[in-house]
């Protein structure tokens, strides 16, 4: 049986047994290469479930939809390793309790998918804890490498051009599982920390503030870059922040839910090289 079919059976069981009140997965989208988030509450709705290599969106953010987890009931969600790490971070940041989340783990290798064994985010500890090491030795994204070669002035010009395209639709924020603030800093106006206007300066402020807020928290799922309707390479910015945090603190986010949020905790031996 294919992974998709195996999971269909499992999801039907989860729903019909009442173990979970909802399963969040994927279904077919408008075009052949698109997948839509799919919310299943009855076994009948499981027939539309699709699980294949096009299921790349990190769905963990939906768990924080207002009121969804407040009744204490469990929800199952299809997650790749990056999504499982999101659950660990959200749990570490007290946004959810991981025992309310049934992980339906899978991974994509090229055009193939494979199931990951486990039920709770903590069951994937072996996978998530090896991700730190893997990330350290991961080959740099070619575009990141190109940016690193630039002079600061060239790099500034690159981002100035990229951010001049931003329309401040906040799709990056809304698509990001880590951007769960009920009131984002840009929506606070006493004082107005960030210009809400979408001119190049305002766009710089917004995108840099968001990158800062994700430093040490981003799981590099790519939701933001894919959501951006004007295709700003937001992932590059977040990858750079991840590199910096990894090098300064040997911290890769989402390894476990007991992992301390790196920029919200202090250790005596923390590197201080970034303090001017």
């Amino acid at each position: 049986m294919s992974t998709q079919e195996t999971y269909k059976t499992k999801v039907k069981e989860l729903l019909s047994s009442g173990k979970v009140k909802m399963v969040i997965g994927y279904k077919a989208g408008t075009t052949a290469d698109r997948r839509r988030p799919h919310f299943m509450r009855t076994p009948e709705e499981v027939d539309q479930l699709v699980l294949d290599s096009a299921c790349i969106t990190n769905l963990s953010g939906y768990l924080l939809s207002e009121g969804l987890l407040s009744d204490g009931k469990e929800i199952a969600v299809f997650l790749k390793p990056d999504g499982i790490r999101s659950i660990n971070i959200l749990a570490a940041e007290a946004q959810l309790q991981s025992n309310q989340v049934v992980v339906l783990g899978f991974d994509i290798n090229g055009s193939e998918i494979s199931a990951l064994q486990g039920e709770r985010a903590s069951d994937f500890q072996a996978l998530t804890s090896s991700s730190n090491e893997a990330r350290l030795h991961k080959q740099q994204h070619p575009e990141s490498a190109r940016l690193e070669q630039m002079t600061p002035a060239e790099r500034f010009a690159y981002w100035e051009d990229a951010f001049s395209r931003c329309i401040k639709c906040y799709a990056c924020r809304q698509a990001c599982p880590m951007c769960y603030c009920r009131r984002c800093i840009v929506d606070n106006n006493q004082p107005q920390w960030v210009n809400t206007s979408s001119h190049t300066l305002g766009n710089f402020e917004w995108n840099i503030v968001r990158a800062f807020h994700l430093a040490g928290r981003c799981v590099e799922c790519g939701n933001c870059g894919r959501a951006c309707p004007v295709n700003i390479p937001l992932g590059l910015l977040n990858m750079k922040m991840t590199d910096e945090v990894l090098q300064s603190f040997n911290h890769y986010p989402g390894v476990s839910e007991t992992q301390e949020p790196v920029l919200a905790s202090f250790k005596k031996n923390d590197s201080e090289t970034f303090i001017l």
Partner: protein
Amino acid sequence: MTRILSSDKLDNCVARWRKAGNKVFGPVKKETTSSYAAVESAAEFDLGLILPDRSVKELFFPQTEPMMRYSIKKQAIDTEDFQPPIEKRIIFGVRPCDASGLAIDDPLFGWDYKDDFWFKRRNNSVIITIACTKSDDFCMCTSLKLAPDSTKGADVMLRPLQNGKGWQVEELTDRGREAVKEIADLLQDSAEPTAPNAMVPEKFNLDACVAWLRNPENFESSFWKEISMRCIGCGSCTFLCPTCHCFDFQDEGDTYNGIRRKNWDSCSFALFTMHTSGHNPRSTQSARWRQRIMHKFNYFPGKFNVNSCSGCGRCSRQCPVDMGITETLQAISTLQP
């Protein structure tokens, strides 16, 4: 015999229009995204795009527009209004859906207070539309009773020739005739046939949808909750939409000097309608999505006798979660009114 503008003369046209004091715009692909942008030569155009990622709306209603400058003195406040631009513009290669979008918004910007920023730009711009011979899975102009060769909002209509080497020229307005006059000697007579219009299948029955939306009983239908469940509440559909026109005013500056700006805003955002007391008339994402659909296909036509949608499909094409007007109206057209 009809008059033809051949592709190889286009650069001459651009030069001629520029020389006559026009700023020339058209579809341009830059880096990873495309929009209607100012050009110096026709080589910068990308006329092969089905349509640019960003709509032509932003050339008339920019994402941020300075309205006035203020400076606070000891005994007085000096203010200075920014004047609407008066530059003459030729916007070449506008898609019929985008041009229609402008015409759809005219009555909105014209009722009550007449928005000078919009109308000065409208009056100083010549919209040269090119009929579509290509479409994609998201195009839906025909579902809105428009067509790949709608002339709505256009000053000049160009129909691509079958041989791909130019366009048949049809002036539609005085502004259009004026712009064509400037390049009259570059046109030639020809009997070359035009290429067939793009095939855009009808995706939903608009009349059935409108009937359903107008039935007050459906306002609190569970349909709204179901269809909008995956909406993440970003503003990409509204900002890319050629007809969405909601805005905000923001003052930017220090204590004494600054600029009041008009910025795009979106009915998708939770804070859009939030009262200062915390009460929010549209407190859920489903209420906000309902507002967007109702506004376009019920409230707006009730006021201005036209749907606030021209079928460009950008809302679905660029939606991070593959939602959009098409899916919603397709679903509605299957419901009982």
